[in-house]
């Protein structure tokens, strides 16, 4: 029941938002998001105490086809559920600060609708339920990114984004249909096949089938994450979308791809994975270097963060496909850390843009004198992104690099460049905006206010929590990642 509430409560709140206006709409949206977070924490406590059995929801959905509406929360799901429910209030608060949005109630409603889709993806335990929520999450983000964008190119950019992702998803659907037709009936069901995750895990397909099935299923994840060379939609979409939509995309939505690999790719087509592992590793490492090099050249803050995200995601993919326990665990921590970091970075960019009207770095400079608090928050988020020890980013990237190193020393060495590169471009960004010669804004800019401090405070707490006590989350995900590796090794 708790799981069903988690997934569907935001949708109900989104529908209710239709009847609220102005301040009431904000209060309702934020209240719902905070309640959702509290419930997620409650679910976490219940999970730690009594295990995942109490969080399982298995209802008949299409009985004649053996498709059940099966939601469940295990350690891996729980990490991402916590991340999503934690970030959505921050994203909503960011949206509140944009007074210029037309029809803001619809914006908040779509954010909450999106949350339903995301949580559905992270808790789905049936292939078609997973696919269903996977697509459901796309509809609100398309409108969020398109309808509230002020860019002239918004139509082309969001169109490209939509087409890329949906084409990837349809390949995944085709793969799932094939896998589904290979399954046997579930226990106690009259249907000939079953799309339950356990039925998929029990499949024993030939290596040649798995070889092409791998690409069908991986297509959706590759576009979503995105992995080089499927990334071309990403920088434009991140840059030109309204910042809350960018946060949803980069903070949570790209984790759908990595989560999908962990849950629905590695254990389902293990032979396909081992066949294509090296190619994916190479692509991931190209993505790391390529994203970083392009990030160095950027002058637009949001675009720089977008390319930096591309580079960091490459490392996560490399960690996952190293098929080492430590790499998988690193990917889990880094999913959380990256979610927090990237949302923090976009929050900084948004704070500066709202105050100065520009996020173009040559226009900025010398902002730090008037904004000590913003400078500190910026620096903390930045250092965590660079993976300085004590921060969440360090734990994640360290584990990931260790995993990649175990796979191949040279791969580890090249992937390690991500830390050096990100120090280069991020510190340069800091220097050009906060330090350096004064710009026209350095005297007039105002420092962070009340709500913003709370938002940054929450993010910073999590950054250090992940840096100092990563065990909280590692312990949750450890049984799941080791189960995945057992399935891969069969």
């Amino acid at each position, binding site marked *: 029941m708790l799981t069903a509430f988690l997934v569907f409560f935001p949708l109900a709140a989104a529908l209710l938002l239709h009847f609220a206006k102005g301040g009431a709409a904000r209060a309702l949206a934020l209240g719902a998001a905070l309640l959702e977070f509290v419930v997620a924490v409650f679910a976490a406590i219940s999970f730690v105490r009594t295990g995942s059995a109490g969080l399982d929801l298995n209802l008949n959905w299409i009985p004649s086809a053996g498709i059940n509406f099966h939601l469940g929360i295990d350690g891996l799901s729980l990490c991402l559920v916590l991340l999503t429910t934690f970030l959505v209030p921050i994203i909503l608060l960011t949206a509140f600060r944009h007074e210029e949005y037309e029809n803001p109630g619809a914006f908040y409603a779509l954010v909450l609708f999106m949350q339903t889709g995301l949580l559905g993806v992270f808790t789905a335990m049936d292939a078609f339920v997973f696919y269903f929520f996977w697509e459901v999450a796309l509809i609100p983000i398309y409108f969020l990114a398109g309808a509230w964008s002020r860019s002239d190119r918004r*139509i082309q950019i969001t169109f490209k984004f939509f087409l890329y992702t949906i084409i990837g998803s349809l390949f995944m659907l085709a793969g799932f*249909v094939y896998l589904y037709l290979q399954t046997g009936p579930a226990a106690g069901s009259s249907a000939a096949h079953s799309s339950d995750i356990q039925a998929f895990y029990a499949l024993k397909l030939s290596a040649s089938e798995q070889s092409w099935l791998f690409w069908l299923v991986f297509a959706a994840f590759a576009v979503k994450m995105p992995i080089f060379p499927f990334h071309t939609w990403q920088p434009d979409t991140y840059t030109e979308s309204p910042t809350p939509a960018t946060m949803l995309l980069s903070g949570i939505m790209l984790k759908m791809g990595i989560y999908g690999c962990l849950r629905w790719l590695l254990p389902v087509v293990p032979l396909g994975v081992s066949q294509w592992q090296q190619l994916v590793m190479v692509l991931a490492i190209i993505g790391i270097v390529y994203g970083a090099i392009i990030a160095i050249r950027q002058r637009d803050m949001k675009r720089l963060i977008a390319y930096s995200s591309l580079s960091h995601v490459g490392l996560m993919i490399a960690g996952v496909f190293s098929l080492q326990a430590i790499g998988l665990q690193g990917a889990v921590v880094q999913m959380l850390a990256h979610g927090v970091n990237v949302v923090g970075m976009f929050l900084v960019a948004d704070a500066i843009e709202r105050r100065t009207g520009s996020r173009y770095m040559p226009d900025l400079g010398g902002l730090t004198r008037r904004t000590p608090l913003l400078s500190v928050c910026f620096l903390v988020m930045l250092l965590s992104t660079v993976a300085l020890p004590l921060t969440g980013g360090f734990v994640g990237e360290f584990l990931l690099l260790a995993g990649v190193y175990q796979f191949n020393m040279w791969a580890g060495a090249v992937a390690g460049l991500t830390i050096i590169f990100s120090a280069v471009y991020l510190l340069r960004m800091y220097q050009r905006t906060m330090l350096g010669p004064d710009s026209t804004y350095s005297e007039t800019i105002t420092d962070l206010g009340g709500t913003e401090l709370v938002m940054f405070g929450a993010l910073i707490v999590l950054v250090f929590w992940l840096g100092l006590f990563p065990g909280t989350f590692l312990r949750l995900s450890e049984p799941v990642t080791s189960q995945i590796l057992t399935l891969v090794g069969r």
Partner: protein
Amino acid sequence: MLPIVLLSVFGILNLFLGFLRSNRALLPFILVVLALVFGVNLLDWNHAGSIPAFLDSPYISQMLTVDNYSVAFSGIVLLTALLLLPFSRSYVVAGEPNLAEYYSLLLFSLVGAIMMVSYNHLIMLFVGIEILSISMYVLAGSDKRNVRSNEAALKYFLQGAFATGILLFGIALLYGATGTFQLSEVAAAIATPANQSLVPMLYVGVLLMVIGIGFKISAAPFHFWTPDVYEGTPTFFTAFMSTVVKTAGFAAFLKLLVVALPAASTVWLPTISAMCVLTLLLGNVGATVQTSAKRMLAYSSVSHAGYLLLGLIAGHGQLSGAAAQSIFFYSLAYSIATVAAFGVLKLVSDQRQREDYAGLAGLGRTNPLLAFVLTLALLSLGGIPLTRGFFGKFFIFTAVASQGHIGLVVFAVLMSMVGIYYYLRPVIAMYLRPAEPGAEAPIVVDGFQSATLVLLAIITLVLGILPGFLSNLL
């Protein structure tokens, strides 16, 4: 059986009502009649062969059969008409003098449609198709001062008459080869041919029938009439044409293939597979280059014929199970979404006098309800989850894939990707483009039509979220 009788009687009655010159009474009357017939139709559910005693002579009862299959598809046809009719309000408001005739023709065409889904005798198939088609020829040209409407009627009539000739020729050859019109006897005669020298004639007959029906359901390469006819026909009747005619046509087609011609599948299976690939390709590619929303929907209806043909391919052996079920579900999803799309398009084109994408611009701001319903309809046609269209496609693809036609399914999936492209364009126009100068005023929609639109949206969503309901009827 009773629905046919009721529809015919009320259709004639309605013509007399027309003499009263009271347009306002007509729409409620027709709605009540349709609701009544819809209910009566459902009474036959699970009462296979329940025919009133006075009609139960072998002669008539062997011509039509009432079973769950016919009840289900009659249900779709009647429901579609019922949900579509509120959008004819503009005729009532404008004081259209021939409204009673239009409504009567609609009722008669429904008689034809129901005969097409319940025939058991090839002559009944022919009669049903003709009753449906002749009504539609007239309705296509109902906007008689508009050259495009006249063109549509003429094209539709010429092509339709041609197709009917081919179909009839096919039936005649089939009769020549098997000596019977009864579906089950045809099947038996094909399975054990009495005279081997007649087999070529039989195969030619089967091919001609496939071609004849292919014209009616606008399957490529016999689809050329579709875009022009759909565009010229008044939008209200286009909607009727692309839903009722298509649903009835496919139900009839499936019944023909599965009940009468299973033994001839060596002939029709490759033919239909080729038609299916061609239809998907031409329909989807054709739709991408359109700038008129109505023409895009015309091509999209061709492409949906392709998906339904895919369902026919899965239809080996019986009138129940995966194939019939998937065609039933798909037809319903397609009909509901098409009614919603054409309904919104009619409201917009009546008041903005244009049918292209630019005419839809800014609708998200001026008329959130219209924009929302049209978006939902297009997402459903595109097969995106949360709408019923997704499960429609899903069931068809699964049914076909389970028969081993993986290549066809992959091709259809690729074509649905193309579909997303053109279904998204009106959505972009509505939400992301500002209204054209001079078209900023909201479109006036009365409460009755709004309620219908909301109902259509609810049906699309509810069956998109809870497909289990209705997913194993047949």
